[in-house]
């Protein structure tokens, strides 16, 4: 059971990499990057998972319990925030590219650039 989650994250990672390599549209590449991020995040959370573990909160009910590792979750929170930031930034850049070249297709952009140069 616990291994499945690793496989899932690797499959998603593969999808992301395939997306970047195969897709021409720059926005799709950005989304693929975001997918890779997600895959890595899933992987990290899975690392801290303990079979039948509980939320790592001290209380009177669970003074000593089978806690899951809280640190990866904290890390993932940060990583997610950073990922969102990069996604937003990438989108801004794409908007600029679209304004400048009128397209997000690298072939068309290259044509425009050659005309400009």
């Amino acid at each position, binding site marked *: 059971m616990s291994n499945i989650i690793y496989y899932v994250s690797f499959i998603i990672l593969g999808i992301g990499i395939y997306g970047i390599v195969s897709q021409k549209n720059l926005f799709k590449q950005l989304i693929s990057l975001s997918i890779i991020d997600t895959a890595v995040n899933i992987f990290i959370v899975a690392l801290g998972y303990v079979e039948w573990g509980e939320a790592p909160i001290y209380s009177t009910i669970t003074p000593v319990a089978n806690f899951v590792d809280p640190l990866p979750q904290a*890390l993932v929170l940060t990583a997610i925030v*950073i990922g969102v930031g990069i996604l937003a930034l*990438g989108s801004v*850049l794409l908007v600029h590219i679209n304004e400048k070249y009128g397209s997000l297709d690298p072939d068309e952009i290259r044509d425009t650039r050659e005309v400009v140069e």
Partner: protein
Amino acid sequence: MIALLIAVPLVFAFASIPHERLGRYFLPFVAMFNLVCLFFFMHPEQILEVGKWPAAYGIALVLDNVSYPFLIFVNFLILMMSLSATLENRYGTLLLVLTAAVNGIMLTGDFFNSFVFLEIISVIAYIVAAHKDNALGAFKYLIFGGIGGTMYLLGAVSVYVKSGTLNMAYASFITDPMVVPTICIFFLITFLVELKVLPLGLWAPDVYSNGSSVTPIALGSIVTVSLVYLFSRIFLNIFDLPNPQLVGILAMVSIIFSELGALKQKGLGRALSFATISGVSTVVAALSMRESEITSAAYFYLFNDVVSKFILFTLFAYLGERGFKSNKTAGIAFTFASLSVVGFPMFAGFWAKYYLLKALFQVNSYALPAIILIAAVIEAGYLIKWNVELWYKEEDREKDREDVEAEKAEGVEEVEEVEDFVPFGAQVVTLLLALTLVVVGFMPGLIHDQTMSIANHVLDFRPYLDLILKGGM
């Protein structure tokens, strides 16, 4: 105390948000403040445990003999850049955050913390890269850097899984022969991307050649130096570099191909970008040898390369289509910097090459010196070509300008602009740096003593571990 280096720039960054141009005025003072702090109030070998958490659990900021000189150098570069670059609108705020992040990445003793700082640096780097309407280059960098950053995260988490802590010093206790190389390769990919070693540094020429006075300096000088620090910390101090020979070969291939790329360029900006790739690749190739003399020489080489490229890129940004005839000061700084890059005697570059070659020959490494010298021949060819072209450009142009002036009577304004095309700040800074190159050229000991001390400390893991253990457990 050492947290101030990160906190003060951040505070001022937030303070500058209400007004667009405020950050620009804060930046030099913040950099100055950092330098003053470093020189007078902070001295190596101290550790700060954030929130009083012991090092193994919490984040520790470490100021040791390796990070101290690097911090001084980087803050000095920031100060210089704040004076020389033309910072528009919110770039001041951005660079304040960059200052915080760069100081942070050099102080932190925690892998995840360094990942966060690395990502902050990257995000700012993407924005800075997009300067001068260069969104496409910045986007390429973003995809490349994004994957690189993910690799770093994977590496950091693997360290946590294996050692139970994110602290850099404790990470070295991982001895599993299967795991350590894997972790290192994750980290290595990030560094190869960020340090622009060629197959992974393909983003750099498009980004650096945008003609901005900020991008190549913020990325090529400041970020590069801080990442070389992190590279040495991780691969020389904590772990062993995986496949040092392969990394060396990659870097050597990168040196040659980037020089060839530079040779072909018709524009100065792209040529300089390729030259930067070659310079940093040389440093990486030398660092991969893991030997104290070579490491010291590599830092010397880095110093020379960064300072010279600072001058070259700044002047390129202001130069546009003009030559040096109307501005001899700029011309002299440019020529000095290019001579130093190639490694002619009487400049710092010569000693960088001298120490590097000497150290390499001492360990009977013959391939890298040959590559460096072949690269220097190519470099000499195109850099001198650019120098000659820029020095003797005006003669043809003067005629054109006369024609233009004859056509429109109000050409007076234009002429004035041409007379003084480099802002005063940039002129002073480039001249100062050029003089630094000359002074170091005559007294290499100034830098060599420092780099030697860094190299000895960075290759010796004990002091770092002791420092952290003393404060920890």
